């Protein structure tokens, strides 16, 4: 058998391939050669073959058959073999493969090798990919090496210890004695890795944190030496001595000083020194300043120091370097809650960042601007934010619109200003507002009683300009339906009332019905609005005609509404005025999903009226007669049930009746997780038999926190017109500890009250 081709020859050959297919062919041929070479147990060329395999693995081809060969290389005595073997182990093996445990003995031997570079290889591999079992077995060796005087090994052992602690936190105690003299090292590598080790221990255990607080003076001294010492060629980066170590020490100081007055005081001076003396012309200096600012903000520093920190951030905001501006905005966002006034001073700079060209910076600036809005600056801020809304990219518009609505709701100086702001958002970014804005806005408008005439007038004028933005059109239709009488009577106080006739209003609404731009939902709104006007306008005949035309519409929803309204005109005309009366002030119901506004007007519970106010994702109830109009459905207390309980995941169902339709059961699922790890990417799916109809609303989240710390809820609506026994099949998918889990289950134990 001829010698296998060399690595670099292979690389060169593969790079000459002109197509993917050609490359695949070459690789397959080589893989076959490598495989037969492995079978022959050839020691001489194993190293070469594994190296080639690693190259092919990087190109994306499978290389699992080389895993055992890596182990053989590691066990070899040749340094070259070991080097490639350990590299292969780190690339091809991980704790998922059972094979990796075979490495443990080799690593153990190599940790005690006479050559430090071999020991280094073993430490590196253990520190990068050691599994919990390996860490448990080899922790003792690592601890021994942590106490050696060889700085090359000591620094690697320290980071290996960090990895061991991350994998097996219980072993942390074991490394405590070895940390005694770590900070008295002169070698920067050891010093750096020691600080990392101490940081890891302090983050994981409050006892360790208390124990290591006494190191603060020593850390301060080391940091001082770094700053004050002259040029050191070994560690210099653009005039700053070992910035990596400086940042790491600052971070450890942050953790040690966090809730401790004494420690915080001990570090005040050095922090002020670093903050004022660090050179800011290059990125390095700014990295250190950034870390200093984070530390100052987290510990119990004196107010002068805090102001210094915020001013540094303010200076960062004016820096030419985009990265620095981005970092400043992110940090200010974190501190805005605690140091609101200090951050307010930089408000104008932050608002200027809204005009930055960089997308990440714009987003941060937008979030920060919303956080800075308060009762005093609302008018000015809103002007800037609305200008931003006009000119920003579509990806921002939804968030910005929501933010504007929220801010307006909290701090609106007057109702008129509030409504004007909403109008502005709807006209400029109307297609991007979230679905739940429409009912929220309707509710807001209803509640501002004195502004009804003004609102409806402005909305009408907006409709005359543009009917393409659906949320605007929907809100406008609703308002015109409700307050059309105010519109034609010209009662507006806030501004010059416009002269509008009933026919003109009906023209506009009918225009919405026929326009191609209107979605089915919008058409529903328009039709209902026209119907409502039958009690407010005198041109009832025209309305009757429109309604009867749509009784044969192809759109089922529209047809249904038209038929119902027709019936109102014909059989139930005596009820029409009461039914279509002005809406009372609505209670705001806070829910995660679409808001369901509960109507409590009069003795009857007309589902017709309710169907107008549910947001676009609406129910699918089919009414054959109006008998149920006169029924008040009582919400029975239906007991909750457990639908699924397996492998730590429990799903409970709670019930309520959709008022007033007794055919719809509203089920809320509550998913809880009793295992010790979070369940992520949780998806709940359900299927029902053909006689039922099912609607799933959006879940509260897709992460089920561990140890029953929280639940994920989701609402299901089941329509059961034939009153059959409710059955459901559910499918659950989630990721637990990195592996995907999927399960199917039948739910048959629904209480009879839920479907009867």
């Amino acid at each position: 058998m001829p010698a296998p081709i060399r690595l670099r020859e292979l690389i060169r050959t593969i790079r000459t391939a002109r197509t993917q297919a050609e490359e695949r062919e070459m690789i397959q041929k080589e893989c076959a050669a490598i495989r037969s070479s492995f079978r022959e147990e050839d020691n001489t060329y194993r190293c070469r073959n594994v190296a080639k395999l690693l190259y092919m693995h990087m190109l994306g081809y499978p290389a699992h058959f080389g895993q055992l060969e890596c182990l053989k290389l590691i066990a070899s005595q040749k340094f070259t073999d070991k080097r490639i073997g350990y590299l292969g182990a780190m690339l091809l093996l991980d704790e998922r493969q059972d094979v990796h445990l075979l490495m443990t003995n080799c690593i153990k031997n190599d940790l005690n090798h006479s050559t430090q570079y071999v020991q280094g290889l073993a430490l590196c591999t253990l520190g990068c990919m050691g599994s919990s079992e390996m860490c448990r077995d080899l922790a003792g060796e690592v601890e021994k090496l942590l106490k050696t005087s060889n700085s090359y090994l000591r620094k690697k052992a320290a980071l290996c210890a960090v990895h061991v602690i991350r994998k097996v936190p219980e072993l942390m105690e074991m490394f405590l004695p070895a940390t005694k003299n770590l900070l008295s090292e002169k070698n920067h590598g050891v010093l750096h890795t020691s600080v990392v080790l101490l940081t890891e221990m302090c983050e994981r255990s409050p006892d360790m944190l208390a124990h290591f607080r006494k190191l603060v003076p020593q850390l301060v001294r080391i940091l001082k030496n770094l700053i004050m010492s002259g040029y050191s060629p070994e560690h210099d980066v653009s005039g700053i001595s070992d910035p990596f170590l400086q940042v790491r020490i600052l971070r450890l100081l942050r953790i040690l000083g966090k809730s401790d007055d004494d420690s915080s005081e001990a570090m005040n001076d050095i922090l002020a020194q670093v903050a004022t003396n660090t050179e800011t012309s290059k990125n390095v200096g700014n990295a250190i300043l950034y870390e200093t600012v984070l530390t100052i903000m987290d510990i119990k520093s004196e107010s002068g120091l805090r102001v210094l920190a915020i001013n540094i951030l303010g200076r960062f905001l004016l820096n030419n370097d985009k990265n620095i501006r981005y970092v400043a905005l992110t940090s200010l966002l974190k501190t805005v809650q605690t140091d609101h006034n200090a951050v307010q001073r930089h408000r104008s700079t932050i608002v200027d960042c809204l005009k930055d060209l960089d997308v990440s910076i714009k987003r941060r600036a937008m979030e920060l601007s919303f956080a800075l809005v308060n009762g005093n600056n609302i008018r000015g801020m809103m002007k800037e934010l609305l200008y931003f809304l006009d000119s920003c990219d579509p990806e921002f518009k939804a968030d910005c619109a929501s933010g504007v609505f929220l801010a307006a709701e909290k701090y609106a100086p007057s109702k008129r200003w509030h409504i004007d702001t909403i109008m502005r958002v709807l006209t400029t970014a109307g297609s991007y507002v979230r679905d739940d804005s429409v009912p929220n806005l309707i509710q807001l408008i209803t509640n501002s009683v004195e502004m009804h005439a003004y609102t409806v007038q402005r909305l009408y004028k907006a409709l005359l300009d543009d009917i393409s933005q659906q949320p605007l059109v929907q809100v406008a239709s609703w308002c015109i339906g409700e307050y059309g009488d105010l519109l034609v009577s010209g009662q507006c106080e806030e501004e010059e009332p416009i002269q509008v006739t009933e026919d003109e209003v009906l023209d506009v609404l009918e225009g919405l019905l026929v326009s191609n731009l209107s979605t089915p939902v919008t058409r529903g709104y328009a039709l209902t609005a026209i119907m409502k006007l039958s009690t407010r306008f005198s041109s009832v005949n025209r309305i009757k005609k429109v309604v009867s035309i749509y009784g044969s519409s192809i759109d089922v929803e529209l047809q249904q509404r038209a038929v119902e309204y027709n019936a109102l005109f014909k059989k139930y005309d005596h009820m029409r005025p009461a039914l279509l009366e002005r809406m009372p002030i609505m209670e705001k119901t806070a829910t995660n999903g679409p808001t369901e506004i509960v109507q409590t007007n009069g003795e009857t519970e007309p589902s017709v009226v309710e169907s107008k106010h549910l947001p676009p994702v609406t129910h699918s109830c089919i009414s054959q007669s109006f008998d149920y109009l006169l029924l008040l459905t009582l919400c029975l207390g239906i007991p909750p049930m457990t639908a699924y309980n397996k492998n730590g995941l429990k799903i409970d169902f709670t019930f309520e009746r959709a008022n007033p339709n007794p055919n719809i059961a509203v089920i809320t699922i509550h998913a809880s997780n009793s295992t010790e790890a979070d369940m992520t990417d949780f998806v709940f799916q359900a299927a029902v038999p053909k006689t039922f109809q099912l609607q799933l609303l959006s879940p509260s989240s897709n992460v089920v926190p561990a140890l029953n710390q929280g639940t994920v809820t989701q609402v299901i609506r089941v329509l059961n017109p034939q009153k059959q026994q409710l059955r459901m099949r559910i499918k659950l998918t989630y990721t637990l500890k990195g592996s995907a889990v999927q399960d199917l289950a039948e739910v048959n134990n629904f209480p009879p009250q839920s479907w009867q």
Partner: protein
Amino acid sequence: MMRFLLLFSRQGKLRLQKWFTPIPEREKKKIIRDMTTMVLARQPRSCNFLHWKDLKIIYKRYASLYFCLAIENQENELLALEVIHRYVELLDKYFGNVCELDIIFNFEKAYFILDEFLLGGEIQETSKQVVNRCIESSDMLQEYYCEGETDFPGTWRKYHGGVYEQTCILTCGLKGIEITAGEEYRSRMYCI
């Protein structure tokens, strides 16, 4: 800690991958795809930071190679830029005016250098000279221990004009073979 480091070309070809946490192979491929798509789509003068899931992605372009480093949320992004820069400096010192071809043809060396600089997602050595010295010593050790022909010359000298020579103690003489035209940058001679 750092979660992973990826090096890829402007065409999205992977040149180096270092993972500091155990991740299934399929997910690694997905992450690589996501990273290359996200980073290659960025405007030339945008800031070097991205958000992806719960990690911060720091990327920097050096000539034709993108260096993409993922760090946890509490880490310092500006320092991460320095980490990337330091690694490039180490590669440059070792290869002499390093370019993408060096990393393609000597990827195992790039890994060895990385493993002397970072360990378990943290920096292990802050001095450039110490890292270089360690690599050189390891290379010498490789030469010293190798028997017969070797694929991995411990050290080589580069002459001006781009001819590499292999100077491994135990091999017979110097060999040089020219790479055919069509390589992107300059023609180099690699010993094999």
